[in-house]
């Protein structure tokens, strides 16, 4: 490069930029490692990642997509909060305003709604992926537990958000949902009373759901997503090729020599912590991982825009406690439960969901067989995969029946 024309200005600008970015645009391997380690936003992924992890066919990017959807929901949600009034009947009117007069309001609301549905779906698929690849095994047991809690929080977020438009759909879905909670033994009625902030769904309920939806639950999810990703780093990524130990940094055990990133990247002299990894199998996270993540994010945002432009988020008449729509349905992800509830409220509303959650939480501590980790449908895990797949299939069938095949009075109807 020729000598710059204003060397002192250039130097000043350069110094100023450095104060913001620390490392400039990385042009060497050393800087590519440094930029990942020295940035608050980039330090979550490691500086170098294995090629195996980058294969889209292994993770399908489901965890990443969930996180992106959470980001979209946060941004659109904050925007919606500027117009939404959490008190009936203004709540319904403010949603109507968003739908009809607020600039871009309808897109924001559609996007928020469809992202919420997508997030429930993608988080569930992520859980299935982790199961089918056996990725919850030691040392990642606890991260599976964190993931299950994140799934429950996602459902809670979706459920609390469902009431906010204060339309008939919202009101009766929450009526059915909170009455299911009342079937819990001993504390059921008290739980319902606390949830509703009274005996019936009213202004107090809306305010409680609003605060849960906009403050408590998103904060909890943000913290747990951080823990979740952090543990992925610390426990090591699953799916290392058979034979090599998928250990990066074992919890509580620190490598005896703590080499810096510079030495790791430049000298190819592995420290203990990376001994199990094959340096030839790894690439720099910048640009290989980051560009892929950006592309996925772009794809998700484009898809959400297309869906939000084509399909309107449902909004029915204003909530009317005296008129139950026929049929009254819970949100789709609870329709499998509602189908069970149709046979018995206690079995469908309390027993089955409790058993499923307990089984999911206990799974990595019960299924301790270390074989078949890191591959889709490993033959060593035939029994576990068969059981899990059967449960997923039953849940899917029940949800489809509840969604499409149930009409007035919950009688069987054909969707065509």
């Amino acid at each position, binding site marked *: 490069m020729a000598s710059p024309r204003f060397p002192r200005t250039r130097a000043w600008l350069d110094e100023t930029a450095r104060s913001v970015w620390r490392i400039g645009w990385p042009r060497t391997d050393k800087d590519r490692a440094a930029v990942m380690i020295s940035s608050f936003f980039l330090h979550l992924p490691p500086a170098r990642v294995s090629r195996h992890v980058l294969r889209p066919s292994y993770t399908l990017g489901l965890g990443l997509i969930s996180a992106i959807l959470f980001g979209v929901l946060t941004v659109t949600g904050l925007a919606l909060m500027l117009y939404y009034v959490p008190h009936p009947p203004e709540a319904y009117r403010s949603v109507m305003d968003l739908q009809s007069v607020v600039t871009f309001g309808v897109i924001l609301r559609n996007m928020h709604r469809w992202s919420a549905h997508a997030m429930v779906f993608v988080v569930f698929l992520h859980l299935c992926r982790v199961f089918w690849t056996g990725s919850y095994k030691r040392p990642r047991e606890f991260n599976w537990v964190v993931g299950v809690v994140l799934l429950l929080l996602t459902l809670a977020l979706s459920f609390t958000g469902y009431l906010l438009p204060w339309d008939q759909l919202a009101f009766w879905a929450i009526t059915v949902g909170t009455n299911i909670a009342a079937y819990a033994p001993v504390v059921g009625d008290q739980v319902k009373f606390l949830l509703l902030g009274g005996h019936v769904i009213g202004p107090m309920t809306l305010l409680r759901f609003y605060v849960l939806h906009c403050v408590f639950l998103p904060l909890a999810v943000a913290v747990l997503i951080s823990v979740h990703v952090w543990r992925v780093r610390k426990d090591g990524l699953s799916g290392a090729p058979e034979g090599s130990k998928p250990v990066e940094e074992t919890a509580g055990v620190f490598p005896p020599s703590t080499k810096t990133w510079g030495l790791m990247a430049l000298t190819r002299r592995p420290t203990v912590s990376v001994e199990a990894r094959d340096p030839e199998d790894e690439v720099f996270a910048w640009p290989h991982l980051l560009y892929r993540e950006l592309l996925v994010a772009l794809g998700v945002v484009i898809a959400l825009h297309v869906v939000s432009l084509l399909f309107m988020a449902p909004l029915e008449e204003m909530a009317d406690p005296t008129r139950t729509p026929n049929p009254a349905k819970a949100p789709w992800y609870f329709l499998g439960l509602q189908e069970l509830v*149709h046979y018995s409220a206690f079995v469908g509303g309390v027993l089955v969901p409790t058993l499923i959650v307990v089984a999911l939480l206990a799974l990595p501590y019960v299924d301790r067989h270390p074989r078949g980790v890191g591959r889709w449908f490993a033959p060593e895990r035939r029994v576990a995969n068969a059981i899990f797949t059967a449960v997923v299939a039953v849940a899917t069938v029940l949800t489809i029946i509840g969604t499409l095949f149930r009409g007035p009075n919950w009688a069987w109807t054909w969707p065509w």
Partner: protein
Amino acid sequence: MSDRERDSTGGGRREFFLTGCAAVGLASAGFVVSTFRYLVPTVLYEPPARFTIGSPSSFPPGSVTFLEDRRLFLFNGQDGFFTVSSVCTHLGCNVKRAASGFECPCHGSRFDENGRVVHGPAPAPLAWYALSLSPRGELIVDLERTVGPDFRLKA
């Protein structure tokens, strides 16, 4: 410090420390319980559980009136007045009057004329509420007093 010394001086200190820890733990637990109490509303701005619904003469004999705001059916039968709740005992939807009895749109529960479960997932019959007459001769419903299906109010 020798063992003997620790026993004589350190023991007292340890005891003091443990007592302190227990006290702080207890106070924290109390704090958590009180915080939980904060979540329970003490004032409810809900409709009262005891209310008048008008004079008996405004409900002609043999009629069934659905008081939608109160979620009640008021019957003026041959031997007197009685009320049946329209809140399904399953998951709280409003039941509707059907050819014989009541039907719930949410999960298909069916009840007979007296609110007893005929079919479906509802675990209990529809509630019957006590009726009485106010000094001015108006019908009073008391949602906090449930009665059996033999209840009738002569008015």
